[in-house]
């Protein structure tokens, strides 16, 4: 029944990189060091959580992992391959998709078109692209919003359209930048189920940036904690929960 969900145009295949790795990433903006020596590895079939207070450098790290930001030093590897100098488009072609913290939907187009256009970009026919978009929207629970103009959607639905749009690319990794921000508990719960299903449904690894601890603890296989651009902990959810340093960083953030 979910065949349409995995449609790809002829000649396009899902990339097969097994892991996306940051090695000793440093990013400096003029004087400010946004990231200092951060290393992590997202694996296919896993949901990898990236948490930390505002300004910790999470978005900057995602930008490095998707080609939007060149690290000052350190390197990003995709399936072992050095990606130095890759453009965002090259990352995309090699299986790295992302959503944006700011949504960045095509706001004057319908929700269906927002998703459809990505399928068209990949080279699908109009008909196939439309079917595929509708299936993807149904999958994120927005089937009934297809004809809504994207700019009028509630903030929280925007993020789900963003996820649908990214998943159309059939990525090997998808990086989600704070998809649950501003959501109610019930909405968070829905979103958690969607995110948790991505690795199995799409054989796609997830890197999830999130503030909401219950979302993070609920779906992540592994968690990496940043604060002030530095790694302060990494481990299984249970380990992170018990980690005193993390708890204090979070108490600091939420207080």
């Amino acid at each position, binding site marked *: *029944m979910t065949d349409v969900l995995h449609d790809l145009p002829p000649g396009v295949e899902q990339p097969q990189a097994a892991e996306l790795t940051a090695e000793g990433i440093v990013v400096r903006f003029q004087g400010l060091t946004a990231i200092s020596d951060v290393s992590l590895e997202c694996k296919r079939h896993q949901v990898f959580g990236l948490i930390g207070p505002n300004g910790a450098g999470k978005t900057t790290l995602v930008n490095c992992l998707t080609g939007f930001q060149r690290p000052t030093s350190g390197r990003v590897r995709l399936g072992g391959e050095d990606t130095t100098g890759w453009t965002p*488009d090259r990352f995309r072609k090699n299986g790295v998709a992302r959503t*944006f913290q700011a949504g960045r939907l095509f706001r004057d187009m319908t929700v269906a078109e927002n998703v459809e256009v990505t399928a068209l970009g990949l080279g699908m026919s109009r008909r196939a692209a*439309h079917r595929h978009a509708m299936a993807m929207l149904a999958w994120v629970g927005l089937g009934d919003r*297809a*004809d809504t103009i994207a700019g009028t959607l509630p903030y929280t639905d925007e993020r789900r359209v963003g996820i649908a749009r990214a998943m159309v690319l059939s990525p090997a990794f998808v990086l989600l930048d704070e998809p649950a921000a501003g959501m109610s508990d019930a909405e968070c719960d829905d979103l958690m189920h969607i995110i948790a299903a991505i690795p199995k449904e799409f054989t796609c690894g997830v890197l999830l940036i999130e503030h909401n601890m219950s979302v993070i603890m609920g779906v992540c296989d592994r968690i990496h904690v940043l604060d002030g651009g530095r790694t302060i902990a990494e481990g299984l959810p249970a380990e992170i929960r018990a980690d005193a340093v993390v708890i204090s960083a979070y108490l600091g953030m939420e207080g």
Partner: protein
Amino acid sequence: MTEPLVPHAARASLLRRYWPLLALCALISAIVAVGSLGSEQMQVTMTEMLIRLIVVVGIYLFIGNSGILSFGHIGFMCIGAYAAAWATVDPAWKQMMLTGLPDFLQQNQYGFLPAVAGGGLLAGLVALILGTAIMRLSGIAGSIATFAFLAIVNSVYSNWESVTAGTSSIIGVPNVVGPWVAWAFAIGALVLAFAFQVSRWGIMLRASRDDEVAAKSSAIGVVKVRLIAFVVSAVIAGVAGALYGHFLGILTADTFYLGMTFVTLAMLVVGGIGSLTGAVTGVLVVTLVVELLRHLEAGVPIAGSTVHLPQGSQEIGLGIVMALIMVFRPTGLTRSREVPWPFTRRARRRKMEVAPAR
């Protein structure tokens, strides 16, 4: 997943899908049909309006879908106008005045339609070369580049005596364009612009207009779809130029410069830069305003004496109308929407009209 839960435009009836195009074509046809019964002056005004409609629709195809302001399209109009005139003017005159023309143009006289096609093609070719260079520029940088192009075209065509007759003008261009010829091309331009905007390229280009970064990470070849639109819109502008030459009968480079650029962009902005309906509405409304002001400038008899507005009222009046519309309707008279489908039940339509102004 078998059937989507909600009907979508793509599966709705064909009539509904093409409704905005049908409505606009019907409107233009009705205006021409009524106008063709009017005076000689009316025919002239209407022909000129229809040619401008073609230019504005051409400009809309690029600006409306890409979100990049172009000041260069009147340059394409100029290129098309001259190219067509080179083909149709009497060879004896060309051999005397346009000594720099290649032999196949100098020695021969071609028909009107091949000449128009040639004008459109040359404009398209130049757009392909220019566009390859500048379509990767976004925002103001791209717009300035198109403006530079306009200035260059004007300067070349004003000074290249041996092919454009420079300031002494090309005369004797056959006067073959009347309202019905212009109408036929206007319908063609509307069909082309609408077909583009519902095509896959149209959708991808509008995505890049709304968010270039997101478009690029959605597998959209932004530069490529922009270039396609730029070339198609230049061809339309070139064809309009060819028609304009064969309407005026005489060509001077300054006809295709700042004045024309201002009027056509004003039309687009007044109607609504983001929809084909906006382009058409803008042409109709601005033509009406300009004609009205021109009558007032020429003088109207009121109570035994003739009252007339001072020279220049046309430009000032148009400027004021534009400013007012920008203040009260920043997205144009149509709010950059297409003609709505009139047969939707009211409750549902209200829901759909939550669509935003940008």
